[in-house]
């Protein structure tokens, strides 16, 4: 049995039956990582010793009668999330030598549940990007076609699942950074409602948009991980004080009568025909399962990208001001006083895309431009949110493609930053409105690249989104396919 090929829930069942041990499972996954990393490069740091120690501890806990879906499961964590005692870089050179002094709340919750951390996953620097090409460390390759990107910014989190290097991963999503790589790599990923999951210990990019979420091969796997990390955290005042349902228990069920809205603005010119075909076929499948499909409109969709790139970069310019070489991270060599040290530290430590976004955000907030750019974008955010509220009065979920194309080639979009930004078009409004959004495989294009279906719900209705996803998953077979070795 190739243990690294197990889905999250199959592995959890075998562990619970004591048919396999966490040590066996973790060893198989670590061996798989060793065999595939030269080509795929999902990991910035592999934590073999830590993983084996945690696996032994999980087996010991189970022997004492402990249980739970995460107990003994090998997981990977995006390198923007703090893991105590382990190097955490956020994909940047400015944190190249940073050892996290504490665990993020999401890390702590996974570890307390007995998960085994196999390593820290590659990402675009400070989560800024849609291809993971902005990582200061390495280019991650899409396991389905190694000349193509895995998507971004949580590219390593998605590629690790597709390459069988972890049974569950954590990513973050600010403008689509869980959903779009999930689509590129043919896996399931969910961005929860803003406030559903704590951001404490997550390196901040845009504080009103960032959310942590799980990725896995199946909807069930995501449901289990989400249930473990979600919930109020006193350390994060934006985290919602609401009970966490048992997402995995709630999956099975009919979606008869589920009202599904298909927004016309999400079927645009410039969209790959294969993508449109696959998504429309998936919608017909939902209809066959009893869903009621309607055409809807989200009229302010075209303003989402400008609004996002003004708000997110403004917040980023503030959040990244802390990287000043004083208490942690890179410090440029002495000379020319304090200001010079700040300027040269940040010049040396940040990559081009990060600098660009800091500049854009600083401009949007600067005197004379604040009203025209930042304030304006925040008002447009209200309009976008209202569009969704309006549609959700008559629809239960909204279904769209996750991205206009499948995974593009490495280097294809790096010369024009705006081109890269436009690939976020279907995911970005969901962050602005703070809604839960999931991506799952719904087919493959003529080149064999995965196509993603996005399901969006009302705030805090992750259960309904997961149910719809599960129903579609059980009626299709996309999740049974893996990239050829």
């Amino acid at each position, binding site marked *: 049995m190739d243990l690294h090929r197990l889905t999250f829930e199959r592995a959890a069942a075998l562990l619970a039956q004591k048919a396999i041990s966490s040590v066996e499972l973790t060893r198989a996954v670590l061996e798989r990582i060793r065999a595939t990393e030269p080509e795929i490069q999902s990991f910035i740091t592999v934590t073999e010793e830590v993983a084996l120690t945690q696996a032994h501890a999980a087996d010991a806990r189970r022997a004492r009668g402990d249980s739970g879906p995460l107990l003994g499961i090998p997981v990977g964590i995006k390198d923007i999330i703090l893991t105590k005692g382990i190097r955490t870089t956020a994909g940047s050179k400015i944190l190249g030598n940073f050892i996290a002094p504490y665990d993020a709340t999401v890390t702590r919750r996974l570890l307390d549940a007995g998960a085994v951390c196999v390593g820290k996953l590659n990402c675009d620097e400070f989560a800024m990007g849609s291809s993971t090409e902005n990582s200061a460390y390495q280019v991650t390759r899409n396991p389905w076609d190694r000349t193509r990107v895995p998507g971004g910014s949580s590219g390593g989190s998605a590629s690790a699942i597709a390459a069988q290097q972890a049974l569950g991963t954590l990513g973050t999503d600010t403008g689509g950074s869980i959903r779009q790589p999930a689509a590129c790599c043919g896996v399931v990923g969910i961005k929860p409602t803003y406030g559903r999951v704590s951001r404490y210990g997550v390196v901040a990019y845009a504080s009103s948009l960032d959310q942590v979420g799980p990725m896995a091969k199946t909807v069930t796997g995501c449901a289990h991980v989400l249930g473990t990390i979600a919930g109020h955290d006193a350390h994060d005042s934006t985290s919602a004080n609401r009970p966490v349902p048992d997402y995995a228990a709630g999956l099975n069920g009919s979606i008869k009568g589920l009202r599904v809205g298909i927004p016309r603005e999400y079927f645009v010119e410039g969209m790959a025909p294969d993508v449109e075909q696959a998504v429309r076929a998936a919608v017909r499948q939902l209809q066959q399962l009893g869903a009621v499909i309607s055409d809807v409109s989200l009229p302010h969709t*075209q303003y989402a990208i*400008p609004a996002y*790139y003004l708000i997110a970069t403004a917040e980023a310019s503030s959040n990244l001001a802390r990287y000043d070489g004083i208490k942690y991270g890179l410090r440029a060599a002495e000379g020319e006083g304090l200001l010079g040290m700040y300027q040269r530290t940040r010049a040396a430590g940040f990559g*081009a895309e990060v600098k660009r976004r800091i500049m854009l955000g600083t401009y949007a907030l600067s005197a004379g431009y604040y009203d025209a750019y930042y304030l304006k974008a925040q008002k447009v955010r*209200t*309009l976008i949110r209202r569009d969704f509220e309006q549609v959700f009065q008559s629809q239960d979920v909204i279904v769209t493609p996750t991205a206009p194309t499948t995974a593009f080639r490495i280097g294809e979009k790096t010369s024009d930053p705006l081109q890269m930004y436009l690939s976020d078009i279907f995911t970005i409004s969901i962050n*602005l409105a703070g809604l839960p959004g999931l991506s799952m495989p719904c087919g493959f294009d003529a080149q064999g690249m995965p196509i993603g279906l996005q399901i969006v719900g009302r705030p805090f209705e992750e259960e309904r989104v997961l149910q719809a996803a599960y129903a579609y998953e059980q009626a299709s077979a996309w999740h049974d396919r893996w990239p050829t070795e």
Partner: protein
Amino acid sequence: MALTREEVRHIALLARLQLSDAEEVAITEQLDHILQHFETLAALDTSAVEPTALVVDVTTAYRDDVVVNPPAAEALRQNAPARDGDFFKVPKIIE
């Protein structure tokens, strides 16, 4: 209204970023191109619209003024680029 190199230099100073000449030229062009694309926002009438800063309703979270975190000073100092015992060493601030 094209973005000028002077403005880019001013923003770089605000952002505490040192840019090379080549970077300045490239960023001026790229930001100008991006901002032009964003001009579409100006066409929207938002005079009667409230801005959204945060999508969740949050009220200030209060708690009693007691220490709850265990001391972790050493863990927080271990990443110091320059250190002298309990102190972070920094470049001279006051000339």
